[in-house]
């Protein structure tokens, strides 16, 4: 009896294990044929008839809600298609990591789970454009780039000139200043006059001392000016041989960051931190920010809140050096099962005049459609209320002429984040200059073993 019981128990246990193994196996075995079947279907259809039937799920990878908002407002999704947003934060390269995983796995998942479109930023767009994971959008039917800014097409083209995506915005960056503080410090809040007083770094640094004397901060973070310098650098962060090269522009920023911190011209904090954002509110003490249209319409969102912020107390001008910052490109993923919709979205956001006009009027965007931008720039009726009625589009139209998409690498996002973070410790006085740089090199070795650091 005992023996029987023991045998029974053992059998039950072994069966239990088999059951586990079986339940693990079954979906895999059933999935595989399903996937191959699905793959074959469109092929046969495509040869027989027009591409009538496309996927029912449209997957978009993004790192924030910015484009999602515009998409949901201004794009009419074809009937029966569900749009699926997969959003991961950009900070620390999380978005890139997740996106890479998904793209590398693209061939192994069912059509409805494949990425159809993903967003990429200027700091790492090259990584995806120069790969087999993005596809030629001209073949999908997006062919009219006559109104877009040349650099946006160039950035989305691979080495042989194949265009893989479009940007829905153009991103010349400006000096964004608080009118009331500028009046106090400079005696004027008129964009042209402010520009004349801040059109070089020497003037900018001198004004910083004046601002400090009056109890203000020139910038809210020592990294606020980073993009202005780095975008004017002569060499990329990583050269052709894979060596890290910090050019003179970046070294100039490092010097300025330390001086500004030591003299109390700026707070030392991350540009995306609460501390930095708090300075945008009504009781903030910061005069200058730098950024394109997306910076004040999206990232300064809190400052737009009439209760907390200081709506209308802002204005823009070129600042010490012309530059551009970021931008969101829409890239077409290889293997998408919704090619028509994909092409339609891209075409809508660069060529549909109504949508582009709405983006400017309702969202304070600076669009990637030169004709629409020019129309608003010339319109005396148009003014941005957040900027005290200033015609921001007119300013950006001029600034956009300077944009050159060059000296970019696939590493820029993390190299920039790391440099700002480790240099901040030096600005704070927590480490010596050597320690800060040594920590930065260690960080690079961990993130990108292929980059040679000093």
């Amino acid at each position: 009896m005992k023996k029987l019981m023991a045998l029974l128990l053992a059998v039950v246990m072994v069966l239990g294990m088999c059951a586990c193994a079986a339940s693990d196996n079954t979906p895999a075995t059933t999935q595989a044929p399903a996937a191959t079947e699905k793959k074959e279907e469109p092929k046969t259809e495509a040869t027989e008839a027009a591409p009538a039937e496309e996927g029912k799920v449209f997957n978009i990878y993004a790192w924030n809600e910015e484009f999602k908002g515009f998409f949901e407002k201004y794009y009419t999704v074809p009937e029966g298609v569900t749009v699926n947003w997969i959003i991961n934060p950009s900070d620390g390269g999380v978005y890139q990591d997740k996106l890479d995983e998904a793209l590398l796995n693209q061939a192994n998942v069912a059509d409805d789970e494949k990425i159809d479109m993903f967003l990429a930023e200027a700091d790492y767009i090259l990584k995806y454009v120069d790969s087999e994971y993005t596809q030629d959008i001209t073949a999908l039917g997006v062919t009219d780039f006559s109104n877009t800014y040349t650099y946006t097409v160039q950035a989305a083209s691979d080495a042989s000139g194949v265009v893989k995506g479009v940007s829905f915005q153009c991103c010349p960056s400006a000096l964004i200043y608080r009118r009331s503080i500028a009046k106090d410090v400079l005696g004027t809040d008129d964009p042209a006059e402010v520009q004349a007083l801040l059109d070089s770094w020497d003037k900018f640094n001198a004004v910083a001392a004046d601002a400090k004397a009056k109890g203000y901060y020139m910038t809210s973070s020592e990294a606020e000016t980073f993009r202005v310098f780095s975008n004017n650098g002569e060499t990329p962060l990583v050269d052709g041989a894979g060596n890290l090269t910090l050019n003179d522009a970046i070294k100039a920023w490092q010097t300025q960051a330390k001086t500004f911190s030591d003299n109390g011209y700026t707070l030392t904090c991350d540009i995306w931190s609460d501390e930095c954002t708090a300075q945008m509110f009504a009781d903030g003490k910061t005069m200058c920010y730098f950024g394109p249209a997306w910076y004040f319409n999206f990232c300064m969102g809190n400052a737009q809140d009439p209760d907390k912020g200081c709506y209308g107390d802002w204005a823009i001008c070129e600042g010490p050096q012309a530059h551009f910052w970021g931008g969101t490109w829409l890239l077409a993923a290889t293997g998408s099962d919704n090619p028509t919709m994909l092409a339609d979205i891209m075409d809508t956001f660069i060529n549909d005049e109504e949508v582009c006009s709405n983006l400017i009027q309702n969202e304070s965007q600076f669009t990637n459609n030169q004709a629409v931008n020019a129309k608003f720039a010339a319109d005396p009726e148009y003014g941005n209320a957040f900027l005290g009625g200033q015609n921001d589009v007119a300013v950006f139209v001029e600034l956009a002429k300077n944009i050159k998409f060059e000296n970019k690498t696939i590493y820029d996002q993390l190299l920039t984040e790391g440099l700002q973070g480790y240099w901040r410790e030096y600005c704070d006085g927590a480490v010596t200059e050597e320690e800060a740089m040594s920590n930065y090199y260690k960080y690079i070795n961990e993130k990108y073993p292929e980059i040679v650091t000093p």
Partner: protein
Amino acid sequence: MKRLPDSRKAKRKSISYAKWGYLFIAPFFLTYAIFNLYPLILTIYNSFFENYRSGLKQVGPNFVGLANYVKLFTPDANGTIDILKYAGNTVVLWLGGAIPQIVIALLLAIFFTSHRLNIRGQQFFKTVIYMPNLIMASAFSMLFFTLFSNVGPVNQLLIQWGVVDTAIDFFSIKITVRSLICLMNFLLWFGNTTILLMAGIMGIDQNLFEAAEIDGAGSIQVFFKVTLPLLMPILVYTIITALIGGLQMFDVPQVLTNGAGTPNRSSMTLIMYLNNYLRTSKNYGMAGAISVIIFIITGLLSLMVYRSLTKKD
């Protein structure tokens, strides 16, 4: 030769249940082999290879011998060997949390079990001190990050009360970052330790306490001469589990310093270092080498504690 059949017969007669025993414990060994032993061997194997991802391209695996280990132990320009520095950080952070944790837990356990004090509402207190352990460590860490940020409530209060003029940047000063991490680990774990030690003390024969009291021993004498020696097995168990947990410290400092181990990487633990190699670059070679080092350190420390335990027995 002749005896062989006899002995065989004899064996057959006495029924051995050993095989059933083995069969019953087989699932454990099987899962151990699949989920622990195999990955362990694979990790050691991987540590001899150059194997990482550059963007969307895979580099390796190429056999490089001990190159990864050599790299780990090569001092940097300032003469520090990173992995030793992070091991040091880990130990400091662990001790800072574990010492108060054990001392306070021991005190509380004695108070709660003392029939002289006879504290009321024990159930309530036990629940309260155990509470922090129920919160996810990363959520707890995020809470502290918000509380102690430059614009957070702690700084606002300090300024309002006139203690400081400008906000203290808690996350750029070595001592404050480390203290916060230790404090959090202490808060998270002291309740758990208290419950364990209480169980240990309640397992001691009450007669011994009474006898000591009749002999005129004071409460301090009772603690050192009766409670502590008899509690030793449980205490050592607590210390070993805390040690292993401490060496794997990750979530609290990772979330609090956003993975950077600020300032000057002085709150970077071994596992955070390991994680740095696994994110973005997927550097299995270096990560494997670090894992092997952590494995050796953990093994050695556990052996030390185990030795000290068995010696006393």
